[in-house]
């Protein structure tokens, strides 16, 4: 949040610094009074057995009530009213007025994100967006409540069953922005990461076009084997690879898996080795995830990995 990469994030950061400095002033004033009181300290209460000798100062404090009203109510009231007005102004400035944004749907699942583009491209846990253009993220959920939060780009928005929540994002620089589910969503809430990659618009257009295409045909015998094993084994029950008979919808679409940086919504970096390990026992990397340990032999796993790593 302190490293904003969009106009909206910068507005929120500006609001934060205003609130921060006001807060520092308030804490400084209060601390000043506490220290002033401590300087007036005396060592002990009255001396032992001395009950009628009155060390208690019964005089009313002449400035007391006025001080409480002014310092405790009037001045804070003014500061609070100003902060309220400023925060509403920031709220009002946020969001984009672009009436033809790129619409991307980001569906929350336990514990990963499905990303759907209007041209039919489907991917997972990584959103690519064009720099400088308004992207309107539709934020539904497939199960429990999640919350989409990429601190450098935007405030967060909850994904709630039955709600129709949206969030506009405009990245003003190319870059990679990490986000993570903010609403507690169960066992692996900690491993529900999302990566937003902002890229030049023409690069983005190329990418999203390729991403919409069906999967590449396997090259070589091992990859071909891998594809057949994938289609026949339980993999295809949950995962889709467009252009093949694998049309499962419970897990992430793997049509262009090899394009992605991580596995399991940020649990491990994607390499042939980590993919093989993940397929062999996903419970090891991400305990509680729906995907069961594989029934494939190590050779079969290698073949599947060879195939999947070709899917760029």
């Amino acid at each position: 949040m302190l490293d904003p990469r969009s106009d909206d994030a910068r507005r929120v950061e500006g609001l934060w610094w205003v609130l921060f400095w006001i807060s520092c002033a308030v804490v400084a004033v209060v601390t000043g009074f506490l220290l002033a009181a401590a300087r007036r300290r005396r060592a002990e209460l009255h001396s032992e057995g001395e009950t009628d000798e009155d060390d208690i100062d019964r005089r009313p404090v002449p400035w007391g009530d006025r001080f409480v009203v002014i310092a405790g109510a009037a001045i804070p009231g003014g500061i609070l009213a100003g902060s309220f007005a400023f925060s509403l102004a920031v709220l009002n400035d946020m969001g984009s007025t672009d009436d033809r944004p790129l619409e991307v749907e980001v569906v929350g699942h336990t514990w990963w994100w499905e990303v759907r583009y209007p041209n039919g491209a489907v991917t997972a846990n990584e959103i690519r967006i064009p720099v400088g253009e308004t992207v309107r993220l539709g934020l539904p959920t497939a199960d429990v409540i999640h919350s989409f939060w990429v601190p450098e780009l935007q405030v967060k928005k909850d994904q709630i069953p039955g709600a129709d929540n949206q969030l506009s994002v405009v990245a003003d620089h190319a870059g990679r922005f990490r986000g993570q589910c903010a609403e507690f969503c169960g066992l692996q809430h900690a491993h529900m990461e999302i990566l937003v990659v902002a890229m030049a618009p023409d690069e983005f257009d190329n990418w999203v076009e390729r991403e919409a295409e069906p999967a590449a045909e396997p090259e070589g015998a091992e990859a071909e084997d891998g594809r057949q094993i994938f289609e026949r084994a339980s993999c295809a029950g949950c995962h889709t690879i467009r252009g093949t008979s694998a049309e499962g919808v419970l897990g992430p679409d793997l049509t262009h898996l090899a394009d992605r940086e991580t596995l399991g919504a940020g649990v491990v970096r994607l390499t042939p080795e980590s993919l093989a390990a993940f397929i062999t026992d996903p419970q090891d990397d991400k305990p509680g995830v729906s995907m069961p340990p594989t029934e494939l032999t190590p050779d079969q796993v290698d073949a599947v990995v060879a195939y999947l790593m070709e899917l760029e």
Partner: protein
Amino acid sequence: MTTTAAPEASATTISTVERLEAVWAEPPGLGSWLGTVDHKRIGLRYFYTGMAFFVAGGIESLLIRTQLAGPDLDVIGPEAFNQLFSMHGITMMFLFAMPVLSGFGNYFVPLMIGARDMAFPRLNAFGYWVLLASGFFLYSSFLVGRAPNAGWFNYVPLSGEAFTPAINIDYYAVGLIFLGISSTGGAINFIVTILKLRAPGMIVSRIPIFVWGELAMALQIVFALPALTLVSVLLLLDRKFDFHFFDADAGGDPLLWQHLFWVFGHPEVYIVALPGFGIASAIIPTWVRRPIVGYTYIVIGELSVALIGFGVWVHHMFAVGLPNITLGFISLASFMVAIPSSIQVFAWLATLVAGRPVLRTPLLFVLGFIFIFVIGGVTGVMFAAIPFDQGVHDSYFVVAHLHYVLVGSAVFPIFAAVYHWGPKITGRLLDDRLGKVSFWLMFVGFNLAFFPQHLLGLFGMPRRVYTYDSDLGWGGYNMASTIGAFMLAVGILVTIVNWFRSRTRGAPAGNDPWRGETLEWYASSPPAHYNFVTIPTVHGREPMWDQPELAEGVQSPEDGGRPLTDGHVTLSTSMLDARPQAIVHMPHASVWPFLLTVALLVLAFAVLLDNWALTIAALVASVGGLVGWYWPRGQTQET
């Protein structure tokens, strides 16, 4: 309450004590132990039980902090982590803060207002037994490895049957409904006691501010808690009988849970904070030797917090997608609620600088409270600013904030109260040097534990994650936080040791070791069963400072003291101007509240385990318990 007309006070001082002792003493033995209605015994049980849960919640937090000490650790694993953070929240809110603050209220409200007991002593006993039973019920979930695991605010649909079919969540829902009986009964008892049993002369503008704090807390409980009980019932209906209150596919709405929960949940924060404010307002004058500045403003502040606190719940929901206009109103209320708190803070500061502070342990804890609470307060104001809230909502910034507010306004005042009023309870002084060691360990440890969490939140660390990646650079801040948490724990341990040490080795306290200003110092330390030899007549806001005859021991009937030795009675006065109205007959010890609680505990387990035959049997037994409790025995009051 049944009442008879108030007679003139009459008794001779010598025989008064013997006669009071004969009437009020509870005989030793199991029946008396289970049946006691003495507000002091009950208050102390609340205190010890709450502190035991404080230790349990603290151990949970240390396990949480150990798991988070470094990146990618696997100390306890995700399922245990989720159960522990859920139970940590539930424990600290419901089983520590509320019982301990109610315990102090139970013990000290009658003493401070000059009554011989709470208005409904058996309801009081019942409230304690239900707290103990529901605490036992909630913690029994650990025995089967199925503690609540969806957080203390337990959002649906995650907590619904579809996603958490096991009994973790049933423990939560049944446990909180059960516990709600205790809190509600206790709150009603406080309200009636404070409004009706004040000593003659204690008109509304002379009520001690601590008592106002307990009253504000009680009013909030009465109005807020039904929402929690209701929403827990709805959840049980959804889970056990396939209702669809929260099921979006069937026309229900998960947001219904959030609204109802936070309509309770935000006032709950003030329920825990307001008595702490009251403790600060009570302790400061004694230790600076000057009456509190701005009494009226503080009282208005306490009551306004209690009122405005009901209008801010949606600021827990700024990211759920409600229209901006809705958020705007709640934002305004959330900014406004800071004003009555700030009034109180500046009244304390004014009193502190106008007086001559004696920096012993009770006041140190109060000063620590003010510093910590103000930091929690300013970050709280930040959450009223909608876009900022949407930025840091559900991040560690919130975790930092809520601990600053709650540890600030509950734990530090409670520790101040332990040192200030402990001698009244045990009759012996706590060690001041150990107290200071405890304070500094707690103060430094607390800030080391929670200040870095603000930064983690701003960096993007969400709350309730059981681990985080090493590339993120969050390890150092988390390690600092963990070290701080252990330091805080050591500080707390020092006070626990100090407490038990003082019981045998502490110097005798006498009635009034600090020359306090309110009536609890008029009683002996520990107070007699009947609290006061004579129920005093008060003439000012600081009776112990205004009326030398009180400081000298016993206010005689000539000075307005009322012995009321004829029966198990206390004095009832009018609500505003505290004129004597009636003699109230107080009930004697009874085991029925305990027996009814046992029936309810069986009922809770029966519902938990879907054993409907046992449920019906337990319901019948509960009704039987009520019948037994109220069966006419020729006594005058049974509550």
